[in-house]
């Protein structure tokens, strides 16, 4: 609600009041506002991005659940969607992208490769799961997952946001 960098005593007190008196209803309202306006950065690393095309297309249309399918600048986005394999050349760039996103931010790892390395678990160039470099909120498994699973992953993320504390 109120950022850490806010100076001044009044604001600090306001933060305390908000936290102790109206914490729960406010938390609900803020989180409710967040869950239907998720802006994704999709890192179309590998083959799962083919199914992302279907998810943002007319049949599955992820915008019905409150996530944009289209693009935006990553400094305005709050969900990082990792679609597929991350290799050793890409890993520092992924971390750089994550660091540039503003708080609060969430990460969805999609596909067996992003979750655990998948088919390429013994490759010399592939990371064994993206959680070795980033904190991951939701894992969507499958190689590639069906579009329904993408949507299930999104709904799981929304439930997680709704039950989490405001930052």
């Amino acid at each position, binding site marked *: 609600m109120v950022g850490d960098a806010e100076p001044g005593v009044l604001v600090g007190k306001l933060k305390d009041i908000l936290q102790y008196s109206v914490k729960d209803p406010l938390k609900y309202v803020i989180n409710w506002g967040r869950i239907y306006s998720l802006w994704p*950065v999709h*890192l*179309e*690393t*590998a*083959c799962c*991005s*083919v*199914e992302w*095309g*279907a998810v*943002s*297309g*007319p*049949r599955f249309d992820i915008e019905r659940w409150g996530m944009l399918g*289209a*693009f935006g600048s*990553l400094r305005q986005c709050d969900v990082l969607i990792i679609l*597929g*394999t991350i*290799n050793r*050349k*890409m890993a520092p*760039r992924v971390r750089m*992208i994550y660091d540039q996103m503003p708080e609060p931010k969430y990460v969805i790892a999609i596909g067996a490769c992003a979750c655990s390395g998948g*088919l*390429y678990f*013994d*490759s*010399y*160039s*592939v990371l064994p799961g993206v959680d070795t470099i980033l904190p991951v909120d939701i894992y969507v498994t499958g*190689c*590639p997952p*069906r*579009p329904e699973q993408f949507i299930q992953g999104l709904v799981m993320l929304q439930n997680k946001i709704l039950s989490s504390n405001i930052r």
Partner: protein
Amino acid sequence: MSTLTISVGPQHPGSGHFRLIVTLDGDRIVDAIPDPGYVHRGEEKLAEYRNYIQNIPHFERMGLHDANNMMFAYVNAVEHLMDLKVPERADYIRVIMAELNRLIAHLYYTAITGIFVGHSTMFMWPVGDRELFIDLAQMIAGQRVSYAFILPGGVRNDMPEEVKKKAEKACDYFEKRLVEYDKLLMNNPLFERRAKGVGILTKQDAIRLGVVGPALRASGVKFDVRRNDPYSVYDRLDFDIPVSNDGDTWARVWVHMEEMKQSMRIIRQALKQIPTGPVKVNLRGQVRVPPGESFGRAEASRGEISYYLVSDGGRFPYRLRVITPSFRNMIAMPYVLKGMVLADMPPSYWSLDYWPVEADR
């Protein structure tokens, strides 16, 4: 002359991870150097630790919306070394699946072309129509995109009979839609201005650089592996090879559009000609490849894909070299992009149909 060097990518919206180091003079591109390798997964090395069946899902994942064509060339190489003759029905089912995949891949291409020229209706329509053909492929192979369907010695399972009726219906519908696409994209004055005469790849350059697939045919060279080196039953089917002499962005998109019509023609003929019978040779559970070397090629949706297989008679390939069409088209990028304004770069870059996952292997 002072120039500015910028990096386009590697977090690339639209088509996987890939970096172009672009040198600009004002607004004009002086030089564009591709920097691939952000999706390198070491497929060739991994192939030496997996047996011939386990390699199938691996090589499919190089171009997932083109999975059957990726496998077609590999299976051609393996079957050539095993001296294996597949049943005729299996050959026809393979061709049907390969052409369905070509339609799926070309529709994806059209959709991303729409994104890159800022035309979001042109993204939504092809992605919606693509589901028709995905449904057909799903009826035959049981999966949406990754089929692992073409195996050495035939195909995994037989095709249900309802496919014939449904495919006819889908082709009839889609032919009407292609007319709409022409109105919406190809004859759209906005797209014509951004694509006609932009990003020209001359015939000499295309031959010299070894460009393959629709990019080559848009530059005026009539080369298609299906016709020039026929595999499977392509020599029994009647289809045209669309060729344009312009070599610009518009011509490359046009070749994709025309190829979709030809793919539907092939599917219709194959469904009429398909005989009954078995769909696979019983290999008794294991693919045993005798020592030797073989070369298999096929026309994937982006161009010619070829595999060079060396076997020492063991369970695993001794060496498997893959040359993918995207990798061969990447070298044309500096020649295509040189001299255009930066704003024209996205559609011209994508018109080469560069798919980093496939190029990096």
